[in-house]
């Protein structure tokens, strides 16, 4: 019983980070109807950011967070102007392909530079013991930092003028433009934020698990599952869905082989897409109104 509890709690800790990663995808989707297929590459960029800064430059692992955040933001804004701006408002095929092609370039460059070797960032943090089980300190720290970042994002979107502009553009781009909001710049800002969230998630994942240049794909797919569960375009939903997915993983690992969890997750993903495209929030709302 205690084993199951421990597994569930650890699942939730990791789920929080899945949620953080997915908030990036969902924010971009909500604001500009673009599915950011560079997401995985940006997660990997965050991983290598902390690896290089902590390994080569000797910065303490968690102190790299602000650097990764700002770096991710700048990269995101640049990407917006290079690859995304021209395809805003075009059929989804175009934005999917534009971001996908950037992903190819980044993955190609990454593989050329680092090959496909396994890397890890050694972080020593005391864990928290519960009977026979110990929760790694890195998992606790990652979940705590996720909470802080999610709160900061919430405050930004709901309590600042700029955040309100982002939400206005998300609601109706043309109307926002008519009342004098510089929509293109707001879109660039939102894209930058989304990428910054992805790279910070990558940085936190790197402190917990080993990674390769190609790890991004797996986390990107996981982010899709989470994003769809949480409802595309809904950051709070993404965090909840991330926790739900972590819970699911925690609940199933003691009982079935880990390789089957992927099958469950993707079947769930397709079923949710088909039956409740709004994800968990719609389901909850429906329940409440019924």
């Amino acid at each position, binding site marked *: 019983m205690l084993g199951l509890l421990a597994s569930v709690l650890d699942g939730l800790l990791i789920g929080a980070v899945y949620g953080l990663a997915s908030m990036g995808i969902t924010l971009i989707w909500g604001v500009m109807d673009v599915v950011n297929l560079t997401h995985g590459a940006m997660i990997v960029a965050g991983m290598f950011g902390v690896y290089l800064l902590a390994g080569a430059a000797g910065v303490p692992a968690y102190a790299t967070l602000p650097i990764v955040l700002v770096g991710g933001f700048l990269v995101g804004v640049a990407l917006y102007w290079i*690859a995304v701006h021209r395809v805003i408002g075009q059929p989804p095929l175009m934005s999917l392909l*534009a971001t996908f*092609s950037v*992903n*190819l370039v980044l993955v190609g460059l990454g*593989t050329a530079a680092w090959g496909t070797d396994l890397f890890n960032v050694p972080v020593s943090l005391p864990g928290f013991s519960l009977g026979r089980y110990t929760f790694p300190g890195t998992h606790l720290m990652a979940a705590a930092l996720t909470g802080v970042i999610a709160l900061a994002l919430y405050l930004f979107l709901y309590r600042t003028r700029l955040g309100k502009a982002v939400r206005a553009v998300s609601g109706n781009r043309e109307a926002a433009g008519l009342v004098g909001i510089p929509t293109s710049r707001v879109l660039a800002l939102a894209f930058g934020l989304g990428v910054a969230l992805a790279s910070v998630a990558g940085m936190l994942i790197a402190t917990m698990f080993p990674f390769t240049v190609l790890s991004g794909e797996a986390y990107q797919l996981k982010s899709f599952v989470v994003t769809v569960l949480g409802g*595309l375009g809904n950051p709070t939903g993404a965090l909840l869905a991330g926790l739900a997915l972590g819970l699911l993983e925690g609940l199933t690992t003691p009982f079935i082989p880990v390789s089957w969890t992927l099958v469950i997750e993707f*079947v769930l*993903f397709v079923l949710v897409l*088909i039956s409740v495209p709004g994800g968990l929030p719609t389901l909850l709302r429906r329940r409440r109104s019924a």
Partner: protein
Amino acid sequence: MSILRRPFFWIIAAVIVVFAFAPRVGNNIELRESLLLAAVYITLASNINMILGYAGYVNFGSIVFFGLGGYFSVWLMSAHAWALPAALVAGAIAVSALALVFGLGILRLRGVYFALSTIGVNEAVMAFVANFGPWGGSTGIYLSPELFKPLGGPAQALWVIYYLLVALMGASLYLSYAVKRSKFGLGLLAIGQNEDAATMLGVPAPRYKAIVYSLSAFLPAIAGGLYFFKSAYIQPPDAFDLNLSTETIVVAMLGGQGTVAGPALGAFLYEELRGWLLTSETFSHFQLVVAGVLLLTIVLFAPGGLMGLLYRLWPRLRSFLE
């Protein structure tokens, strides 16, 4: 036979003949292998073009058909000792039927939602196959070299496989051409431009979409069977490689989605370029980078692809190159 009077029919025929005889000159094995890959790319690209270019639905997971086709036929040959042709056809029928079932589900989605679900289908199938005992789980299936005997030994078998793939490429081009000229194809193009308007005008959109999804699975499934018969083994990451899936989209876009000749042209050029990049010392690591830059340039500046450019340069080309 009015179709025999169309120049494009004969252009396709000429391409097939060139593919069939070029490597025979001087028994050029290197050329054969390069053209074999080109034929596979052309088959995949022409088939994805029917759903991507005609109906406007982005299928990121089209490789699932190729992989499943490979798995079905390799499994039938190794576990049930079926002959190659029977295994290929049975595999393709099974995959098409499966595609129809998947299609009826996920084709209710549109745009980005559909695109994401195709990735989900591919990953779900791959994760399932990696756990599926009868298909060897994550180790896959290995074929015994004995299976090459009925085709006259390994050397002869490679030629047979090559000719079959070239035939498949020809079949894909003719299929893609026939669909485009048919009422069905017109319906698909209407769906691609505006699905709601098409439905209002009486195009049975759900049925057409499911049919084209299933149809675009058939020939790639056979190609998968042949491809993995040639390599004599099949494993989940090779069979359901999302990169190959997206490369297929790249080549269709490069040539010009929605045209018949475009995807073939794009596939051929891409394969030649890839072969050149892989052998070049400097660029062998940058294959993906080149593909990415190429795709981004097309998407941002020439959404019509090569065919779009050619049509703009020589508008008369439209009358015989479709």
